[in-house]
């Protein structure tokens, strides 16, 4: 673990414990393994719209939004071992909040709608988190995690029912349409190509924040809970507080993805809060693997790509394909006897092979 730190550029040098320590003499893992891939991906994504038709860049926008959505779920699932079948509740809450503010209340600023959506999502998560963790519970001391999972499904369905019944505000079953282009200030509106960059910037900021969180003291507290919650309590950790706060944090990032989605598609339906949408985040985490930070982002690229191809060649077969992806993603780990852990770890392995091969 020492060498992982040693590579951070510009960071303070790691004090070697003693000159005899073999770790001190080990060559720090080269920059090429972390900084280079991030730079390469960022440059490709930034330059891509110049070379591809606009409908493809809108697909990339969707990949980024869904990637953020999947990664926000992985924050609690992969790091704290809190699975949720209702993550769309927060995705949809963020999306609906922003959309209602813009179309019904007449708020014009994108940033203000984003901020208010974050606050509303956090509040909804804070309220739902109390019964989720106090009554149903997951982890040490909980009767059976299945109750927790069923409760998370119920949260999504509950909110989508509310979206149906609050017709004057949410547009009922037909939902909200005609969400305008994001107004990012100075009188500027974003056309789809500019929105691409807006999503990229917000997504990058969210990824950076999430990366900092999972690698912080708090993040390692979550890892400890993932591995052994009873021991964490015996060590002095209030694990309830960790689980509850991580639930809110994951909800906020899911809500941001929802806001980006609302402005992207310009239409929202109650299903954006329900199981149908939760399934997507669930699939992204399974497909991408829970063990790698960016796993769901890789999965989102794959998922959106497959969805697009399917929509062109066999639009009626999409649900079948979606189900097949689910089954295969789940079966792959036992089939390969654990050698395959998801798309994320595979990409990481491939990258390491490329780097080591050329070095």
């Amino acid at each position, binding site marked *: 673990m020492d060498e*992982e730190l040693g590579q951070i550029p510009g960071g303070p040098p790691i004090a070697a414990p003693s000159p005899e320590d073999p770790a001190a003499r080990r060559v720090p893992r080269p920059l090429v393994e972390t900084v280079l891939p991030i730079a390469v991906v960022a440059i490709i994504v930034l330059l891509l719209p110049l070379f591809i038709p606009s409908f493809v860049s809108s697909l990339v926008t969707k990949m980024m939004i869904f990637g953020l959505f999947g990664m926000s779920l992985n924050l609690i699932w992969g790091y704290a071992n809190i699975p949720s079948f209702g993550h769309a509740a927060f995705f949809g809450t963020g999306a609906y909040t922003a959309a209602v503010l813009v179309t019904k209340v007449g708020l014009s600023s994108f940033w203000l709608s984003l901020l208010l959506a974050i606050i509303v999502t956090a509040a909804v998560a804070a309220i739902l988190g109390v019964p989720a963790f106090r009554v149903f519970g997951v982890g040490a001391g909980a009767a059976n995690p299945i109750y927790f999972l069923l409760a998370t499904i119920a949260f999504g369905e509950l909110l989508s029912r509310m979206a149906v019944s609050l017709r004057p505000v949410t547009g009922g079953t037909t939902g909200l349409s005609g969400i305008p282009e994001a107004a990012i200030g100075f009188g500027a509106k974003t056309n789809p190509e500019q929105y691409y960059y807006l999503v990229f910037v917000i997504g990058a900021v969210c990824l950076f924040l999430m990366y900092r969180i999972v*690698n912080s003291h708090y993040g*390692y507290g979550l*890892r400890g809970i993932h591995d*052994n919650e009873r021991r964490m309590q015996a060590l*002095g*950790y209030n694990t309830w507080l960790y689980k509850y706060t991580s639930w809110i944090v994951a909800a906020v990032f899911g809500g941001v993805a929802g806001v980006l989605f609302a402005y992207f598609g310009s239409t929202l339906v109650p299903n954006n809060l329900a199981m149908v949408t939760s399934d997507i985040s669930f699939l992204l985490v399974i497909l991408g693997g829970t063990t790698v930070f960016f796993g769901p982002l890789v999965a989102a690229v794959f998922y959106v790509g497959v969805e697009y191809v399917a929509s062109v060649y066999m639009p009626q077969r999409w649900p079948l394909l979606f189900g097949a992806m689910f089954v295969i993603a789940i079966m792959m780990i036992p089939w390969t006897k654990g050698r395959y852990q998801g798309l994320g770890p595979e990409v990481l392995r491939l990258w390491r092979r490329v780097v080591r091969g050329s070095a």
Partner: protein
Amino acid sequence: MALLEAQDLSVHFGGLSAVKSVTFGIEPGERLALIGPNGAGKTTLFNLLTGQLAPSGGKVLFKGQDITNASVYARTHLGMARSFQITSLFPYQSTLVNAMIGLQGVEKSRYGFFRPFFKDQALKAAAQELLESTDLWDLRDEIVSSLAYGQQRKLEIALSLASHPELLLLDEPSCGLTTTESADITRRIRDLGSKITVLMIAHDMDLVFGVAERVILLHYGQIACEGTCDEIRSNEMVREIYMGSRKQPGAGG
């Protein structure tokens, strides 16, 4: 004043009384061993003392403070720590991370939201000290699930020491170890120093007689007898309950 006191402590699961009005105290710096046959309620009593289980009746006092209803983590902050009979570590993390997570449990920094975990040099130095004192420093980069069992048991004890406890509750520290490893654990517990009070469950009589100053025998959830090691060794009831009633011919004293 006793450091830890159990007053009339009981717990029953349905009709089964696992612990029946147990009363005892442990003085600061003392080494007390809890022995008894399987199913005597030793681990259940431990769980009552550390807060994993809520008692049906009675009180637990720590440093004179009633902690009967305090949570597990609150007790740790007061100065109690425990080890587990079934090895209880963070299997997917390295030994170093195990120690670091263990050490920050009572630090304010544990809620640090943005500060990178691995840049905490003070925490790393403390982890190094902890691991060096248990001879695990050379294994710091190994994933814990790949460690040998004896090494995992050592880490188990290291983690229970990580919160700098005044009272250490050890649940069968030598469980499943070879004789040599067990002797090593015995030596380590003996070397803990008088600042740490030890209450331990043990089946291994070498460990009990090697470490303990006083022994309590638990039988069917009740204290059957207590006394010094010599008293326990020569007690007729202990032989009957614990070591089997049949006297072996020629086995004198």
